[in-house]
């Protein structure tokens, strides 16, 4: 049942709440009263102190968790239908590559699950390897690569089937600062080239300001949307990190975060 009015919207989150262990002793209200719309092609970040439910919100969008109340619509379908249609690409902090598959075979895994032929798969995986600039490493096993390279493979795998929506949960959280900044630029390049929609969870203020069109600041216990910061910095490059406009946005996000941490 696709809704023509909602079809241009990538994600519509409508009155969503999530309670874990409902009715039990350890009942936790993780999210409450979330309304959020993500436009197709947008890069949106979720930021907030730990316990604000940003990862939970990402999992609700990806239908890895079901909301207690409210609805999540993805490209006009329920999140559940979208997952069954394999509309999602996911990247986690832990690269989640399979040790026993070589790099190319890891990238091809989602294609195998969709029943692509061997030729189609190897053509696409070679293309994706080029996209993340790891052409020489297709025959390696994941553990033979550095953390940053593994994360690039993970991104290549997530994008291999051209998902409509890319969900990323602190994908660069475990990387050192230099690699992280490099990966941010790579991600923006890939995002421009593929024109996909990205929902990105982070706890880094500069990262959210550098990457996103909009930054959603969440407050904790229960997680609520405190504010949404529009970030219009045009095409980013390494110079953007020295741009006064970038500092201004980072300050705005930081102040919003201070406010929510003060509440909690």
């Amino acid at each position: 049942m696709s809704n023509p009015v909602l079809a241009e919207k990538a994600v519509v989150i409508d009155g969503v709440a999530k309670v874990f262990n409902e009715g039990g002793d350890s009942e936790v209200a993780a999210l409450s009263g979330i309304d959020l719309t993500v436009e197709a092609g947008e890069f949106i970040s979720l930021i907030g102190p730990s316990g604000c439910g940003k990862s939970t919100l990402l999992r609700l969008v990806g239908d890895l968790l079901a909301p207690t109340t409210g609805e999540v619509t993805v490209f006009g379908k329920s999140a559940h239908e979208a997952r069954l249609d394999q509309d999602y690409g996911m990247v986690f902090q832990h690269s989640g590559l399979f040790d026993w598959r070589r790099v190319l075979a890891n990238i091809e895994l989602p294609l195998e699950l969709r029943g692509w032929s061997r030729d189609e798969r190897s053509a696409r995986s070679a293309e994706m390897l080029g996209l993340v600039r790891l052409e020489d490493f297709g025959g390696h096993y994941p553990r033979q690569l550095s953390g940053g390279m593994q994360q690039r493979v993970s991104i290549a795998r997530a994008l291999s089937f051209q998902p409509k929506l890319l969900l990323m949960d602190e994908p660069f959280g475990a990387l050192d600062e230099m690699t992280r900044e490099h990966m941010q630029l790579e991600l923006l390049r890939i995002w421009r080239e593929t024109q996909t929609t990205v929902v990105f969870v982070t706890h880094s203020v500069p990262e959210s300001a550098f990457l996103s069109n909009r930054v959603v600041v969440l407050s904790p216990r229960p997680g609520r949307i405190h504010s949404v910061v529009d970030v219009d910095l045009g095409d980013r490059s390494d110079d953007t990190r020295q741009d006064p406009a970038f500092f201004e946005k980072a300050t705005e996000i930081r102040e919003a975060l201070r406010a929510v941490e003060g509440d909690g």
Partner: protein
Amino acid sequence: MIFRRLRGRASVLGPPIVVGVAGLVLWEAVVRGFGIREFLLPRPTSILEEVVDNWPVLRHAIWETGWIAVSGLLIGIMAGVALAFLTTRFRTLEEGLTPLAVVVNATPIVALAPIFNAWFGITGTLSNQSVVIAVVFFPVFINTSRGLMAVHPDEIELMHSYAASKWTIFREVRVPNALPFFANSLRLVAPLSVIAAIVAEYFGGPQDRIGNVITSNVAFVRYDVAWAAIGVASALGLGLFAVALLVERVSMPWRAAMVEGEFTTTPGRE
């Protein structure tokens, strides 16, 4: 690259060979030097002589015992893996069986050998095979099911995001994830199967098996022949251990690639 690999292998095998040979030389020297009587501790060279002199008997005995150990080993492995698969698939079965398996595993199973003799008779091989099967089964079952369950939650979430079925997750994630666990249990049970077979044979049965060759020669104060039988049995245990290592290498090329470290960089996983 081949040179490096060969040199790598030599550097792994070298020290144990040197230590082993030195140990045998020391043994020989101590027995000769201190005049230790041969029936207490024979020299390695006289054990070797006995192996040669008694070769037809020992060859037949190791063949009989080897058959019991290897057939019991294979059946025990298959049963352990099969039950691990079933318990992973059906949670309630797992909750009921695994604690029980841990308890049974803690009981000394070889102590059941005389009872198995009463159940299955002592003339055939079934009684001793059953001991081997029981000894092999539990480590394989416990390790394999642990490997099937110990999957990183992100990997399961990732497969869910691809709308993968339970069966696909089992085949693509759980089974390969369990392989190193299974291989560890294989290293353990391969030599254990020989031990179990021989101990079971101590409780009676046909006289042409290694365990009985050892006990009957000890009874006739022919310790050197008993030692020769022990030596042959050790060789069988070592041989099975080597097969276990080979299976591990062949079934998990990604581990070998990591160990050889031909192009290893810093591991990125926490």
